[in-house]
């Protein structure tokens, strides 16, 4: 690998003359090699767990959800068209559908990051690598790419760079991108038709050797297939409607096993509960994400779910309210929000007691939005953004109460 080092040294641009190309070079160089910078002053803490390693572990933990999600996109696509495709075609269809999305997010987001890094004169920070992987996973599979590009630019500019860059943001950057699309282009990210990818992009057409991706089947949905998600069905019909939904083949569409594996319409990464749980365990074991937030979110949902279940007889019109509280865990994006969104170390509360309060409140508020507001059948995105605002307030009060408690001992 000597030639790579030599090559990188040879093309190193002058920092003073061309700051932008230097930043670009520096970013690629520290990506390939361990950076040679050492601390010159102040406290010396030695830990192999630097920012880059933390970030890459989060990305690795997402891969299970990502791979199952990619397969699921293809599966839903061919089910919707009524084509009998094999597993390889389904998986490849999903991967090729995802690839442009991932590229667009990285190009737009990293482009803005590079520009700001060059302008401010610091090295590129790794924070966006996780956001860039999270943003595609929380989008519907058929979302137009230009919307994703605008949303990514918006979230990097307004939610991150305006607040001072990596580690300074108040709101979860990936969620801000989704919130932007949610309010700017609501028809692309809510409703019954957007959760399945119907179209073929250039990559599909280029790799369609001998029509093995079944492009000739067209893009029209067959009769009997419903793109409605469990949450969409629950608004009107409750748990019975979810169980009664069938595929054109007559199979039950939302059996427990399908919901656990994530073989149903929905956002790309949030469907496969098994993949997310593996990722969550990995994050907890590596001590990147905090179990306190995840645990208290589960408790929060159970708490509010039991209250709703008890109150259910009083509200016969609301289909959501009578759904057994333990079923809320496998519907929609609760687990994904719990494992990857709420545990973001920058935007979450950082005291241990604060984390319990933070997670519990997300669970409670998210379930209230999901159950009580039929216009937003999914509440985790808004609940997490809402609690992001309160995270520092929670921390402040916890620290103040600690000080007050110990002051009597002084």
């Amino acid at each position, binding site marked *: 690998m000597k030639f790579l080092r030599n090559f990188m040294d040879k093309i190193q641009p002058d920092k003073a003359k061309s700051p932008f190309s230097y930043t670009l070079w520096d970013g690629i160089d520290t990506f390939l090699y361990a950076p040679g910078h050492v601390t010159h002053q102040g406290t010396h803490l030695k830990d192999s767990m630097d920012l880059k390693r933390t970030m890459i572990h989060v990305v690795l933990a997402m891969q299970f959800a990502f791979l199952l999600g990619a397969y699921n996109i293809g599966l839903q696509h061919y089910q919707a068209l009524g084509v009998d495709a094999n597993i390889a075609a389904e998986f490849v269809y999903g991967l090729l559908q995802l690839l442009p999305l991932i590229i667009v997010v990285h190009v737009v987001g990293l482009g803005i990051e590079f520009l700001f890094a060059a302008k401010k004169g610091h090295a590129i920070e790794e924070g966006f690598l996780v956001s860039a992987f999270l943003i595609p996973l929380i989008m519907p599979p058929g979302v137009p790419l230009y919307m994703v590009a*605008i949303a990514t630019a918006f979230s990097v500019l307004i939610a991150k760079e305006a607040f001072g860059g990596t580690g300074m943001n108040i709101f979860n950057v990936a969620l801000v991108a989704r919130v932007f699309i949610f309010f*700017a282009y*609501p028809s692309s990210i809510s409703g019954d038709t957007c959760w399945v990818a119907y179209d073929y992009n250039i990559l599909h057409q280029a790799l369609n050797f001998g029509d093995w991706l079944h492009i000739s089947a067209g893009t029209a949905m067959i009769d009997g297939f419903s793109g409605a998600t469990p949450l969409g069905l629950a608004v009107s019909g409750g748990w019975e409607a979810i169980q009664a939904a069938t595929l054109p083949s007559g199979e039950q569409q939302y059996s427990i096993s399908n919901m656990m594996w994530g073989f149903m319409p929905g956002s790309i990464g949030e469907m496969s509960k098994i993949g997310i749980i593996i990722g969550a365990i990995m994050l907890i074991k590596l001590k990147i994400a905090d179990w306190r937030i995840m645990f208290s979110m589960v408790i929060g949902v159970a708490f509010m779910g039991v209250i709703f279940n008890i109150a259910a007889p009083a509200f016969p019109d609301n289909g959501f309210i009578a759904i057994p509280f333990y079923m809320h865990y496998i519907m929609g994006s609760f687990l994904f929000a719990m494992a990857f969104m709420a545990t973001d170390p920058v935007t979450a509360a950082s005291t241990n007691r604060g984390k319990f309060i933070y997670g519990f409140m997300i669970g409670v508020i998210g379930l209230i939005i999901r159950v009580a507001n039929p216009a937003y059948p999914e509440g985790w995105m808004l609940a997490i953004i809402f609690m992001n605002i309160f995270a520092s307030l929670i921390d402040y009060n916890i620290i103040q109460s600690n000080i007050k408690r110990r002051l009597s001992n002084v």
Partner: protein
Amino acid sequence: MSDTKKLLVDPLSTNNPITVQVLGVCSALAVTSTIANSLVMGVAVIFVTALANLTISLLRNLIPGRIRMIVQLVVIAFLVTLVSIFLKAFLYDLSKELSVFVGLIITNCIVMGRLEAFAMGNKPIPALLDGVGNGMGYAIILIIVGAIRELFGAGQLMGFQVIPEAVYNFGYENNGLMVLPISSIFLIGIIIWIQRSRDKELVDIS
């Protein structure tokens, strides 16, 4: 730059009531959904600030210091009522869209701020020019925000379709966020960001 010219030009850029003094933001968020709304609102505010400044400047030596706020408010309220009645008579549709915000010019901090800061201590002609300048500074930001919001929120400018049908057929959609008042807080924030990054004198480190 001569003093009279300075009075008119400064509020447009380096002393803009919205982006530098950060006054009158509330109405700027609410009424800027289209250029027409911004324009009418801007003209109304120019009229009120100019004439209120002139009147108060003429009366400045007669007003007792203790009740000056009340006197200023009476003058502003009179002018705003005039504008409101005029709009209802001649531009009824627009006045319905602007609804309560025309009446709320009374509480617009720009008007009161200019009276207190300038008209109470200056001669009538400079006071009039200062009022016109600040009203224009307010109007120009409103029109910029209104143009961006109308263009991306509805694909129109002044009610005419600007973005052609072909673009929509290609998959383009109007941005629903631009229709919501919340978009103007982002837009005004971005305008402030751009202005301060170009003019370092405006950056106050506190």
